[in-house]
């Protein structure tokens, strides 16, 4: 089954102006069937206006073993968060 129908990652854009978000994966024989399967599995309740599918095998992921060196150095750099500014009232809601 998995050789004939490899795994695909599915990305759905809920509305115009928003970006595609990963929602899950499906099995399908090729890209045409993958878009159909994604439509049938993940947009049954009006979730989307656009679908992307990508072969799971084509995704390059970060190495979980490098999570420490990748992500922990940001933990003590709170000055990167935009929380040190007073927003003038005239600017309103941001």
């Amino acid at each position, binding site marked *: 089954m998995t050789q004939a129908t490899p795994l695909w990652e599915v990305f759905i854009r809920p509305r115009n102006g928003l970006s595609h978000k990963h929602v899950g994966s*499906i099995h399908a024989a090729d890209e045409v069937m993958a878009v*159909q399967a994604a439509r049938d*599995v993940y947009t049954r309740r009006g979730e989307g206006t656009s679908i992307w599918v990508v072969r799971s095998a084509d995704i390059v992921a970060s190495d979980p073993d490098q999570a420490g060196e990748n992500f922990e150095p940001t933990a003590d750099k709170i000055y990167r968060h935009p929380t040190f500014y007073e927003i003038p009232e005239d600017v309103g809601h941001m």
Partner: protein
Amino acid sequence: MAVFEAILELADDHLVLGHRISEWCGHAPMLEEDLAMPNMALDLIGTARTLYDRAAMLEGKGRSEDDMAYLRGEREYRNCLLVERPNEDFAHTMLRSLYFAAFMRPFWLATLEMTTDETVRGVAGKAEKEMAYHIRHAGEWVIRLGDGTEESARRMRDAVAALHIYTGELFESSPAATEAEAEGVLPVRADMRAAWEDVIGQVFAEALLEAPEVPYPQTGGRKGLHGEGLGHLLAEMQSVYRAHPGATW
């Protein structure tokens, strides 16, 4: 003959095919299709519900949508024979959907152009898009099975041999349908042939399939003359309602 009977014929086509496709729920070969098939079944059953409601209203005898679906026997069902054919395998199921949707898509598009019945127009606007998707979904499967492995190609050819003889009935208008056509409610069924053959021709060319000559098309559904399978289908579909008449949930 009355216009409501023509709408009833259409409703029966959709309910019976919808029920047939729903039989795959929980049995499809992969999860993706196990969701896709009920999706398509629900499209068809949704169309049937609105059409039953409209037919009952036009009849004016106080029957409800449920009465139409659950309290008529097989001789009173007016669906074409194609839609009641058993699922058999994926090849039969997908081909049956392709044949049906390739007829209904141009039928609904033509309906949008001409019908004087606002409810029917509403159904046509929604169903036209659903049928476009059914053509795509079933068509892509027919192509892949037809031009697939030795076994899938054989099954696809068997399905064509078994089902093609039922397609002629799609283009026939019963006396009731003829009246609905004359009154400007529904388009002339025979006019859909070019569009239907165009879709089937394109899919078959890619699927390496040939449409056989059909010297003796199978018809009779519009007169209530059905195959053995419809009785079983209705017995299952109607059993709960008949055991608990008037039940709601």
